[in-house]
């Protein structure tokens, strides 16, 4: 801050008259006068309507009319491209390129398990649970350059993406979140401010159960032993050596996994988080505890 500039501006304030309507005006070019039609030279005579015909007389047919020829929008037959679109599940793509970019810039911390919450906090993805988004899918773009060891949880992943993550010694899991819980996962703070207990995660619908119980997709409901076998066979298929995670420094972090009913790490369903007072209230009632621990 230059003291001479401050001094001269204070001097100006002392000398100049008070700001009033008399000495205020808009910047030149800010206010452009509108063209009033029918009031002489350039707004007058034909008033911008052209010469005779339907255009001048204001009688043109509707948009799309082609003079009687079957219009384009009628000629093309209807087909159910978008039929039932509002019932289709959508998954926001997250490329490995973008994930590497976020990690490199320090927006996502690879030394902690990467969750949808972490990605939304880092503004890496935008998920709209109200628009039929059911989470994110890990996309292969950038599989060759991906070089981060992460414990990541997504909702859908292709084989090459799984291979790319595991090649670097990471762990990938696919997990299901129903829309209400997905909203809670994406915006935890606004949920905690509501004062409701954390709900339990629902099981996937019938069509998705085969997907999430399959070890090939690293589903969260799959058998861990089968998952290990699949890791080895995937390494053989793609020709890389599967790094031994058990000898890793970050082994405990990499093997951290959520319970099928859990939404947040470290918080169980049924707990009530009081953010302003920084307290957690846990249910004592037997029935409640039983409810929050059962899957059905």
């Amino acid at each position: 801050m230059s003291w001479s500039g401050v001094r001269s501006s204070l001097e100006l304030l002392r000398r100049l008259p008070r700001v009033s309507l008399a000495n205020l005006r808009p910047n030149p070019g800010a206010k452009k006068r509108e063209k009033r039609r029918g009031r002489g030279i350039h707004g007058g005579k034909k008033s911008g309507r052209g010469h005779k015909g339907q255009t001048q007389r204001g009688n043109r047919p509707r948009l799309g009319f082609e003079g009687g020829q079957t219009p384009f929008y009628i000629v093309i037959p209807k087909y159910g491209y978008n039929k039932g679109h509002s019932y289709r599940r959508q998954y926001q793509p997250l490329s490995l390129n973008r994930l590497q970019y976020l990690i490199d810039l320090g927006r996502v911390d690879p030394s902690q398990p990467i969750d949808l919450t972490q990605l939304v906090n880092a503004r890496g993805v935008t998920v709209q649970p109200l628009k039929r988004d059911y989470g994110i899918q890990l996309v292969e773009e950038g599989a060759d350059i991906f070089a981060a060891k992460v414990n990541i949880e997504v909702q859908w992943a292709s084989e090459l993406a799984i291979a790319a993550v595991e090649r670097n010694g990471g762990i990938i899991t696919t997990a299901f979140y129903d829309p209400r819980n997905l909203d809670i996962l994406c915006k935890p703070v606004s949920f905690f401010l509501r004062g409701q207990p954390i709900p339990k995660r629902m099981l996937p619908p019938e069509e998705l159960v085969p997907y999430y119980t399959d070890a090939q997709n690293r589903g969260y409901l799959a058998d861990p032993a089968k998952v290990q076998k699949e890791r080895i066979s995937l390494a053989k298929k793609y020709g890389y050596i599967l790094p031994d995670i058990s000898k890793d420094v970050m082994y405990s972090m990499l093997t951290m996994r959520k319970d099928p009913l859990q939404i947040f790490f470290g918080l169980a369903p049924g707990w009530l988080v009081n953010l302003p007072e920084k307290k957690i209230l846990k249910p004592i009632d037997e029935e409640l505890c039983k409810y929050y621990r059962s899957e059905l």
Partner: protein
Amino acid sequence: MELFGECLSLVYPLSCDNGFVCSSDRLTVTYSRSSGPGGQNVNKVNTKADVRFHVATADWLSEEVRSVITAKYQNRINRAGQLIVTSEVSRYQMRNLADCLQKIRDIVTAAQEKPQPQSKETAEMRRMRVENMHRERLRQKKIHSSIKRERRVTVD
């Protein structure tokens, strides 16, 4: 025109259902730029995978398999005696490498296949078919001959 990128001799686990395992550093993998359309990406990124191994010294394969491979894939073996398998099907190096390894597995599996001795029924069926073919051919030939003969005008 491809220019070779990195040249790696790594341990690649390669095995198949028949039970052969190539686990030592026998496969030489090289990556280079692929051909075809694709703009800046195809010009800059090394996605073509090239896998080689020396056939004669591949002790993870049996002698017969080695000889079969040398005989059958002569065109793909270079002067140094290395079998070359390349792949540039996809945009991803990893996928191209997987494709190369699968091709090697297929080659070895096909080389290990023993021709099954023909059953008597099949041999019999084959013989009958060949005989029928010859018989039909000669019948058609006779018909054609008679047509040509009838068209001829004999000057008596």
